[in-house]
């Protein structure tokens, strides 16, 4: 299809315009906004789509607003080798005319609905709608990448060029294959759905079957074990039986040998008896020898100890006498010492009395001083209590004074000052309010002759000469205010003086000075009081000493004590500031006590010397006493030792006598049983008897050895031990067998074989089901992969022509590294430039638009050789390209015109100034 011209009448804002388009090459239709560029494209669509009697809003919308005119479009084009002139008018005077000149030059015309139908048929027959939509790019659509897989002319072209038919008819199969594949597999090729579940079920069933089989294997192993145990038990029982027989044989042998053994035991018993008797006689002999020796030894010892006892008793008696003499001497010294101690105590009492008297003297003086100091403290305190003036109050008074002076000065400056002088004889009378004669003077009611007065008038002054004249002077507006200020300052000063209880400021200052002096006096007196009472209250100590010395209440002291006045003067002009100081009534009244006469110092020294002498004499006597006590103790100790020794000697002598008596008695008793001369002969007889019995024992032992009687018992014991062991082993085997049989009984109850068979049955069914699924899954996978592979190969082949064309065009813009890859819909999916491969979604807007334009030009190029070609129309494009790209894209658009009709509508002609050989058509408003 080629467009030759388009004529629009009464079409939106276009009244009447014809645009002629070259049949080949690139045409740039330039016009400002709203001049109807886009209407050209719209008109072309409407003329084919809507019959002239259409009531569509799209038709009504093209009628110029407010104009009752008929929109009309005429289009001239080549379609399927025929030249068409097609005119349609809507809404008013509707008409459709179609004129066709075929390749043979024959002309046909249609009108009305026939014309519309014929045009529609021809368009549908010759223009592939997908291709038309793909290559006509409306406003704002320049970024959309075409997906031209359904464009028949393109498919025809690529099929013709690649030799590979495009398999559009197989899509339902492809979908079905994919659906079947996804029933069993994920896209990633992992088992899925029913198939995956089946595998899990198989695994579970296998585990169950394995466990059941294992349980049954254990049963079979138990059966084998039980069989073995039964055989072993039979064998062991048989061996045990044989062994018990040999035990019986041994028992018979033992019965025969037991008689000889009994006889041997009897002789052994006799031998033991004879040996015991011999031992008894030997013991008797030895005991007799010992008794004789004891008697001899104890007799000798008894004589020696009796002599030693007599000597020690003599020594003890002498020691007792020595003790008696020493204790008499000691008593004398003790008596002397008591006398000396009485003398020392007398001397000490005298010294103490004298010292107490001296201390009482000192404390009495101190107490008198303390009374004076306390009187001073009281006086100063009274002064300070009476003074109500301090630094702050004086400062406030000074400030108040200054304010009064200041206010008065202001009053003087701000009110009339009137001098009234009487110059004649006539009386001059004065009256009025707010008059101030200064310095507190009173204003007289009249002036004396030649008298004069100066007045500050803050109110009204009336000066009159009765009967003759009266002059009134009134103060100005400010006078009342100034007067009030003066009154306020004076009132404040008075209040402060009243509060300070002084008559004026100098009196306050004087009172402040006196207060400072009283404070200083108070501090000094308190310091003195603290030093006097540092060792405690002197009065208490005087009372204690007086009590100890026995001093009693007496006469008033001879010296009258003066009442001390405070060291602060009275304040002039001040009312009774001070009260009479009264001494503290609670203080110790030392004057009620008799003060001892002053002590003679020589008397104390004499007393102290006597005390020392008495002490020396006492010490001498104490030394004598110690010596006497030591001598007496030594004598008592020696006497005790001698007495103790005498007692021991007596005890030992008595003991020796007792032992001798006992030894003699024992010897006598033994002799009563057996005389000394029979002891040896009895021992000889017993020895002979022992030797005889031993001979008999040797003979019988030879018989025992000969028949092996001792071994028979051992063999029997061994055999019994073996029998016990075998019985134990048999019991163990029997228990094991019972245990195993018990297990088997239980497994029988559990129906383990049935369980195993059932589990295997289930497993077989599940496996069969799984195998069936697996076959289906494998088949689905095989088909999916095989078909997929073939489709990929085909896609690669039939996309090659378009891909090659896009790359060829793109390289003229981007250079030789430009490559693209297409998807199944023949849409560009990826672009590579300078080695960087990107999905188209990742491209910049400019690159995206350029790629969309390049792809359309490539499609146009591919289909340009057939009758199905259509113009490529861009309504406003290249809005995102920089200047360099605009140049390259312009060149490309220019070359595209070599193969077909390229129509560009734009309001920005500078974008296309690099399009070579382009026809520019300017639309005027």
């Amino acid at each position, binding site marked *: 299809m080629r467009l030759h011209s388009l004529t629009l009448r009464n079409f939106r804002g276009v009244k009447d315009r014809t645009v002629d388009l070259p049949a080949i090459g690139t045409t740039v239709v330039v016009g400002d906004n709203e001049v109807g560029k886009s209407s050209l494209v719209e008109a072309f669509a409407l003329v084919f789509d809507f019959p002239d009697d259409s009531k569509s809003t799209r038709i009504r919308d093209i009628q110029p607003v407010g104009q009752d005119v008929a929109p009309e479009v005429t289009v001239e084009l080549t379609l399927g080798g025929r030249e068409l002139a097609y005119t349609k008018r809507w809404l008013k005077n509707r008409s459709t005319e179609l004129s066709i000149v075929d390749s043979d030059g024959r002309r046909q015309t249609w009108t009305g609905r026939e014309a519309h139908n014929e045009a529609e048929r021809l368009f549908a027959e010759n223009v592939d709608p997908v291709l038309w939509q793909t290559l006509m790019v409306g406003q704002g659509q320049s970024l959309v990448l075409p997906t031209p897989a359904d464009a028949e002319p393109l498919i025809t072209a690529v099929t013709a060029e690649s030799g590979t038919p495009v398999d559009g008819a*197989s899509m*339902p199969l492809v*979908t079905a294959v994919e659906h079947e594949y996804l029933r069993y597999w994920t896209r990633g090729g992992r088992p899925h759905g029913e198939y995956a579940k089946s595998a899990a079920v198989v695994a579970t069933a296998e585990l169950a079957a394995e466990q059941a089989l294992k349980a049954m294997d254990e049963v079979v192993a138990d059966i084998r074990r039980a069989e073995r145990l039964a055989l072993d038990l039979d064998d062991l029982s048989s061996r045990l039986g044989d062994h018990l027989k040999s035990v019986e044989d041994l028992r018979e042998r033992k019965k025969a040998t037991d008689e000889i053994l009994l006889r041997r035991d009897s002789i052994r018993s006799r031998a033991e008896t004879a040996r015991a008797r011999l031992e008894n006689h030997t013991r008797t002999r030895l005991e007799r020898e010992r008794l004789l020796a004891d008697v001899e030894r104890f007799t000798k010892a008894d004589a020696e100890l009796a002599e030693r006892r007599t000597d020690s008793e003599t020594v003890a008696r002498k020691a007792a006498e020595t003790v008696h003499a020493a204790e008499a001497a000691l008593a004398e010294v003790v008596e002397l010492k008591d006398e000396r101690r009485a003398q020392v105590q007398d001397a000490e009492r005298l010294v103490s009395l004298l010292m107490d008297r001296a201390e009482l003297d000192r404390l009495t003086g101190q107490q008198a001083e303390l009374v004076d100091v306390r009187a001073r403290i009281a006086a100063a305190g009274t002064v300070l209590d009476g003074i109500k003036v301090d630094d702050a109050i004086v400062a406030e008074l000074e400030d108040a004074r200054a304010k009064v002076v200041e206010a008065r000065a202001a009053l003087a400056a701000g009110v009339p000052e009137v001098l009234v002088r009487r110059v004649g004889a006539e009386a001059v009378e004065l009256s009025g309010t707010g008059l101030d004669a200064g310095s507190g003077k009173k204003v007289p009611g009249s002036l004396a002759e030649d008298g004069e007065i100066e007045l500050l008038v803050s109110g009204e002054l009336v000066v009159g000469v009765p009967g003759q004249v009266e002059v009134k002077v009134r103060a100005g507006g400010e006078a009342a205010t100034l007067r009030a200020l003066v009154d306020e300052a004076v009132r404040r000063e008075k209040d402060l003086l009243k509060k300070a209880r002084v008559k004026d400021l100098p009196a306050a200052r004087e009172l402040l000075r006196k207060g400072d002096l009283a404070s200083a006096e108070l501090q000094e007196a308190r310091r003195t009081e603290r030093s006097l009472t540092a060792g405690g209250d002197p009065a208490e100590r005087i009372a204690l000493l007086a009590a100890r010395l026995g001093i009693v209440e007496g006469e008033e002291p001879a010296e009258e004590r003066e009442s001390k006045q405070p060291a602060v003067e009275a304040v002039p002009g001040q009312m009774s500031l001070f009260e009479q100081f009264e001494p503290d009534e609670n203080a110790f009244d030392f004057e009620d006590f008799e003060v001892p006469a002053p002590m003679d110092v020589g008397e104390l020294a004499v007393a102290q010397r006597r005390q020392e002498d008495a002490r020396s004499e006492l010490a001498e006597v104490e030394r004598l006493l110690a010596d006497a006590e030591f001598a007496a103790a030594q004598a008592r100790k020696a006497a005790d030792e001698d007495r103790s020794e005498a007692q021991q000697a007596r005890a030992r002598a008595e003991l020796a006598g007792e032992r001798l008596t006992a030894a003699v008695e024992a010897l006598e008793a033994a002799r009563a049983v057996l005389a000394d001369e029979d002891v040896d002969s009895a021992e000889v007889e017993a020895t002979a008897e022992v030797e005889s019995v031993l001979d008999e024992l040797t003979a019988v032992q030879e018989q025992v050895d000969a028949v092996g009687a001792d071994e028979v018992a051992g063999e029997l014991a061994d055999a019994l031990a073996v029998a016990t062991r075998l019985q134990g082993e048999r019991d163990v085997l029997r228990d094991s067998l019972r245990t195993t049989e018990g297990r088997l009984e239980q497994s029988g109850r559990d129906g383990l074989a*049935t369980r195993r*068979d059932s589990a295997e049955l289930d497993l077989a069914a599940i496996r069969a089901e799984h195998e069936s699924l697996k076959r289906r899954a494998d088949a689905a996978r095989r088909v999916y992969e095989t078909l997929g592979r073939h489709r990929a190969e085909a896609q690669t082949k039939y996309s090659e022509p378009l891909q090659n064309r896009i790359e060829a065009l793109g390289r003229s813009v981007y250079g030789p590294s430009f490559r693209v890859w297409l998807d199944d819909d023949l849409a560009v999916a990826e672009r590579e430039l300078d080695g960087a491969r990107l999905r188209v979604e990742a491209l910049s807007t400019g690159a995206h638009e350029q790629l969309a334009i390049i792809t359309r030009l490539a499609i146009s190029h591919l289909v340009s050789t057939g009758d199905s070609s259509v113009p490529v129309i861009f309504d406003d494009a290249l809005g995102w390209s920089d200047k360099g790209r605009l140049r390259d894209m312009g060149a490309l658009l220019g070359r595209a015109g070599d193969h077909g009709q390229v129509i560009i509508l734009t309001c920005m002609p500078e974008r296309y100034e690099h399009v070579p050989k382009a026809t520019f058509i300017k639309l005027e408003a």
Partner: protein
Amino acid sequence: MAGIPGVVGVLVGWLSAGRVSVLTAMNDSITFLHSSDWQLGMMRRFLGPDGQARWAQARLDAVMRIGEVAKQTSAAFVVVTGDVFEHNQVERQTILRACEALKRIEVPVVLLPGNHDALEPGSLWTSSQWLGHAPEHVKVVTDTLPREIVPGVEIVGAPWRSRRPVSDPAAPGYADLAPAPAGTKRILLAHGQLTSLSGGMSDVPTIDQTSLEAAVTDGRLHYIGLGDRHSTTEVTDRIWFSGTQEVTAPEETHPGNVLKVTLTAEEIEVESIRVGAWHMVEHHAELYDEESLTALEDWFAELPEKERTYVRLAADGSLPLPLLSRLDAMVDAQGEVFASVERWAKFWTVRPAPDAADLDALQLSGPARAAMEELRQALAGGDEGAGAALTLMHRLARDAG
């Protein structure tokens, strides 16, 4: 090993009380029933859970029918020569249901432990579950002593004491026997494969047929009832395998019977009476075209008692894809009708044989056509997986088209 006391003695006492007169009125002839290999508790994985449950019940039903046969034939007693139970460790339900079925046999029943339920340690026969529930008239052979079961008839058995006998498992039952007293019929109950029939393939010691025949010849034995072989088999006129009461595998040739044995002074008469209700069949089909597929459908259609029939189906050949789909559908449908239809994986080699027409019919082009062609070629090259893929793709393309 604890034995089971006085089997035959008790039986004689029980019979003497009420029914001996009936049995001895037969002029020195005696009739009894011989069965074996009940294998109660057996499971067959190819039956599936539902089929398994119904088949297990059928095996009990067959036992109960033996009771009916005993009544109909006036049999004096019933002997079961081994493998009454599938295992010694079957579940309690199996034992209790077996006891209930045995109660339906109104004559004495003598059971012989076989290799499946050997009198080994932990044996079912010595368990409290069995001893506590076994009917009074049912006795288990636990030793090799001949005992008179009815006047003039002795039974001697050779119970299996281990699953791994070390010698001829029947020999203990008769090796030391003296000839039967005059006028006494003696029956041996034994279990195991005959050397003559095993073909040397048995991994446990087998029963020497020659010695058995010698025992018959010299008058020690008058009938030898054998178990272990599931098909009813006459070894000699007096040596028989009764076979299982209900089929257990398609390989069995005459399963599902009980033997009615009548002994007279000199003669023996053995009659096989069917008590089983199930069928297990094996079928091999050659499939290469629509006609062969139709033949298979007809074969299925003609089988009787489908709900009690298990089919193990082997097939080979190759089918065009539409026929292959039809085969799959048919086998699936028959599986619902029959107790079970199993494709015998080992002998199932039916391959898809897609021809150009198949593919053209799908009107595929481009990659789809190429993919299918690749699969077809891979199948032709022996790639089994390609066959399944091709079949699937064919179905998907057909459905999608």
